[in-house]
């Protein structure tokens, strides 16, 4: 909202009002300065020119119900006055957010749809303060959340359930490429990096903490986050970990369990013999042929792209292509026909 726009509007509209229509259909008029504090209303007025009369009222987004809207107007009314000190604003804010959690959530939602960032920050922080330091039962009670996690899921709150078969195949491809690269390196007699203590994401995520339920636990291998290529390492001989792993193996996907041996912290070995072979075989069994064809085609595509990049990178410092396959959704960009 630029100064120029305000200046242009001022001479024509002295103490003017903007007409707004809430989701339930009721129309009300609000002082211009107050309403303009909300970026969304501002945009509507300037870009579309609505709001100047009752017939052309700006219709507010659905998430803004009348009660919330009056709260927001109070907030805007207080904050848009220029002469307020920081302390005043702070005390007002603290009193303002004292309401029950349900209304607080609705207020956050309404403020977000009106793009009123300072209010969104304020309410989000208030919600965060409510959640802080509470047990799950307490949080469920406060927000009236259903208890819809299975016992296993509760014990493994860090489990990531992205289990896209494409990602698995891509990982297989990476593993093959890594093997090839290693072969070439060995043939060329290039010095391999020492102290390679890198593990594949799967191997690491196979770690499970077998202590009390409150503890953070992880599960194996459902998560396939690969940002760049990874080198696999040899499993360490940590018997203790193997035991705890076995205890929880029923909770896991059998294939992942079968393929990578649980390795764990303190891998002192520097040799990285990739276990790609065994992983390949185990994974093969589960994908049905039709799907596999389609996936194979995609994989070939990637392989070609990878090939060209790998060849380039061989001669240089071995910085491979940055393929951001991220469990949180960057793969959505690439997905074609999703299964």
């Amino acid at each position, binding site marked *: 909202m630029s100064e120029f726009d305000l200046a242009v509007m001022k001479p024509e509209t002295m103490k003017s009002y903007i007409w707004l229509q809430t989701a339930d259909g009721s129309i009300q008029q609000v002082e211009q300065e107050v309403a303009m504090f909300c970026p969304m209303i501002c945009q509507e007025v300037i870009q579309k020119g609505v709001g100047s009369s009752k017939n052309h009222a700006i219709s507010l987004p659905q998430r803004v119900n009348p009660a919330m809207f009056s709260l927001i107007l109070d907030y805007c009314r207080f904050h848009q006055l220029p002469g307020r000190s920081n302390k005043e604003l702070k005390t007002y804010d603290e009193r303002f957010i004292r309401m029950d959690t349900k209304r607080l959530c609705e207020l956050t939602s309404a403020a977000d749809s009106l793009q009123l960032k300072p209010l969104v920050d304020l309410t989000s922080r208030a919600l965060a303060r409510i959640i802080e330091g509470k047990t799950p039962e307490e949080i469920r009670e406060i927000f009236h*959340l259903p208890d819809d996690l299975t016992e296993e899921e509760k014990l493994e709150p860090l489990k*990531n359930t992205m289990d896209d078969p494409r990602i698995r195949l891509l990982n297989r491809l990476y593993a093959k490429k890594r093997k090839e690269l290693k072969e070439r390196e060995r043939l060329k007699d290039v010095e391999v990096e020492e102290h390679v*203590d890198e593990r594949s994401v799967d191997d690491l995520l196979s770690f499970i903490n077998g202590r009390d339920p409150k503890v953070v636990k992880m599960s194996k291998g459902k998560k396939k986050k690969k940002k760049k290529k990874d080198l696999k390492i040899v499993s360490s001989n940590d018997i203790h970990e193997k035991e705890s792993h076995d205890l929880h193996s029923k909770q896991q996907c059998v294939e992942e369990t079968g393929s990578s041996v649980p390795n764990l912290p303190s891998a002192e070995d520097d040799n990285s013999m990739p276990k790609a072979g065994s992983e390949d075989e185990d994974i093969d069994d589960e994908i049905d042929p039709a799907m596999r064809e389609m996936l194979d085609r995609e994989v070939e595509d990637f392989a070609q792209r990878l090939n060209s990049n790998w060849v380039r990178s061989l001669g240089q410092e071995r910085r491979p292509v940055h393929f951001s396959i991220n469990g949180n959704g960057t793969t959505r960009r690439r997905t074609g026909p999703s299964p």
Partner: protein
Amino acid sequence: MDPPNSKRPCHAPSVTSSIEFPCSLPTAPGFNQSNIDMTISSFLSLSDLPLFSSPLSMGCSFDRVLDKVIPSAVGTSHDEFKQDRFLDHTLQLASLLYKSTERCIRKRATLQNSISWPLLPELTIKVFSMLDTKSLIQASACCTMFNKCATDRVCYSHIDLTTAAKHVDNGVVCIMIHRAGKELRSLKLGSISPSAGYISLLTRSCLAPLTFNHGFAGGHLRSLHLYYLRSMDVESLSTVLSACLNLTDLKIVGFVPLEQLELLTRNCRLIKHLFIEIYSSAGRITDSSLLKFVDNCANLISLSLLCFLLNDTIAQKLVRGFRQLKYINLSRSLEISGCFLRGLGLSCKDSPLETLILRNCYNLEEREVLLFLNSLLAGDFKSIRLIDVSNRQGLVCDGDSRTSEPRFPIEELKKQRPNVTFVAVFEPQPSLLSSSSGEVYSDGTSSW
């Protein structure tokens, strides 16, 4: 007889036999899936009938049917075997029904929750990103929606695992780092005030995930605080730090005798705040590594080296060498007498130094502090704001004696340099050992 009732007795045995493996197709001829579904739904709707609406009457009906299995006379072992199988199947059915109903309840709850929850996922994630790590995990165990939102990268931007130090091990650290991805900004590990029996579950390679993918996560990390990780050694630490190229804030408390400051900071050129405290006086910096250290970290604003074997030459080189140094804390350095402060006066008229802390330096001399204060009165060190020379055992004065009441020109100092705070507390105080309770840096000063 009621139709449902008449259906049940004759269907019950065949239903059990064909639903031995509920997920596969029935093997008995004449039964297809829809028949079974109909049977099941009519069984489940039995409770709607007025005659059977109370659990008591349903219970009685169940009893009546199952009692038919119990023979009046002793039969053959084959009969017994069949009865056993029948009862086992009934149990199995009952538990399958129970589990299925639970699943259904959960699914329905999830659906209702996703409709009634007022915040968009982005907003929920935004709230979660304001939570500390422990609360985040607690929240993620509440319901499936929270669980999903808690996996977003932004929530793991500042990972603080010091509050749950007893349960944290390498796997947890690894998962958190991977979850954070490119949003990782700060990481705190270890236990801030370890209890007597505290044994960390973290091993020396616990920070290895920072080096994966050519230091992908490490490269985003800005702040790293490590407390009492006794299994960590210099090599593993320096490997990790070599991946953290953008690190601006490093704090290491309670482990690793750090003679090789240079090694540690070789790659972290951007470092601004360095705090190292070791639990026993055992760290002597060599000259060459000191030079390299000063060279490498030209951006250093705040330096704290507690419990090191520093002498005045080294202290002087440190204060002179870092051009932008605003905060220096060399507490508990055994060999510092304070004469390095003399040497600074001439070359550091305009030094940006704002805070000088020399608490509990056993050999700190009263004379040197006096000279330093006089130089302040003369106009040196224009930016200084806080000087702290508190010492539980007093300052050295005139040879071997110690004084707890040194004669400092405090009044004059207050008059001439009103914005300077001079702290000199000499009573024996309760343990100052947990020095790492003071935390955050702002403008180079820290509440210690």
